[in-house]
């Protein structure tokens, strides 16, 4: 199969790379760009572990062909922190014990940042509804929702 050259922005940096039409974005991100924060979970759009932001919106990189992101902007979990300064949502997850094994965490945090950008004053119900496609099998959801809620309160008091 002929490789196609694509150009896209990953975490603020322009990347040019040759991909096959059947290459999945998750594998290009992990194996070619060495950004292993995004996780391969179920591969069929049930778990949300592979979530990345495509032009600011959460999408599933295991169901996205790499060729389709040509000219677009991708943010992975590695792109959230500014140097050593963690993103407020990352801090909130640590402070609220919302990370246990960590496998779901990149997808959880990226989805949560998109939620807070779209709806800075999200209620608990809105948080649970927006996060429903990101599954966690160890910590449970109480601390995760608490962490996201703490970010809402922070933005309110600003």
């Amino acid at each position: 199969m002929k490789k196609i050259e694509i150009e896209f922005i990953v975490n603020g940096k322009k990347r040019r790379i040759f991909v096959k039409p059947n290459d999945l974005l998750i594998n290009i991100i992990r194996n070619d760009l060495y950004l292993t924060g995004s996780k391969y979970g179920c591969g069929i759009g049930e778990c949300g572990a592979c979530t990345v932001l495509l032009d600011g919106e959460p999408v599933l990189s295991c169901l996205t062909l790499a060729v389709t992101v040509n000219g677009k902007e991708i943010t992975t979990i590695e792109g959230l922190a500014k140097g050593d300064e963690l993103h407020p949502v990352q801090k909130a997850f640590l402070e609220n014990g919302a990370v246990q094994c960590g496998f779901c965490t990149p997808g959880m945090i990226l989805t949560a940042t998109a939620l807070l950008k779209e709806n800075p004053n999200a209620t608990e119900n809105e948080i649970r509804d927006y996060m429903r496609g990101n599954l966690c099998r160890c910590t449970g959801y109480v601390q995760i929702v608490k962490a996201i809620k703490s970010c809402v309160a922070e933005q309110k008091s600003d």
Partner: protein
Amino acid sequence: MIRLTNNTKILTQEFEYFAPKTLAGALDLLYRYQDKNTRILAGGTDLLVKMKTIGLDADYLISIKEIPELKFIDTDAGLRIGAAVPLSHIEKIEKVREKYPALYESIKSMAAIAIRNMATMPGNICNASPAGDTIPPLIAYEAKLKLVSKRGERTVLVEDFITGVGKTIIKRDELLTQVIIPEISKNSGGAFLKKGRVKADIAKINLAVCLKREGEICKDCRIVLGSVFIKAVRAKKAEELLRGQVINNDLIIKTAKKASEVIKPIDDIRSTAEYRTELARVMTEDALKLAWGRAGGEL
């Protein structure tokens, strides 16, 4: 149907990929490759899952997501939505929330935000699953689809478009370019209800109703049930009980019972036929009450 033993980590199928930038370019490709195994890629949330799990393959894949002509939303008269618009953008349209609650509720009930950021309404329609969530509300609102090819174009009702499980009347060289929903009259009310195991799940049963009210009379109505037959179906015999009648609780209960009698559900992994029949009755009753209230009616 989905065998999780398969490798879902990579796509093993080899195909040629096209991302035309114009509708004419896409139609040219569809025309040229109509005798080949050609598939249209929109969100990919059904197509790629099927390629991974049941070995669906393609020689040519045509993405329609790069076509600006298919990314429009027109709310002037009714609703006209281009084929490349993701579901999450439709649920954000104020007119959809306010005037087409059954459609709004159906989209909100689907999967999760990441899927809705990718998936499209035509994808849901062309996939033609009996459980497709946007299909009952679209039939209830008398929506039409524009099918375009190099030979010309035609407009068909959603109700006539799907013929069976995964089967539609679309021709190999045609592209579904837009969904057209007629303007809704002032005293109309719609509702969508769905029962799944958990919120993001595929429906055991889903249904949409749309009522037109004139005083205490139901002037017209549509009751559409999904996941109870090979495709979403109207419970026409139940609709007849309501049409032209003064609406009251007893009549709604009678209509809901009729709706549950005319469907032909099956036993499958998500539910039994018996449970679906019972749910159909209860949910039709609830949906009719909700829609009647939204149309400004009282009980």
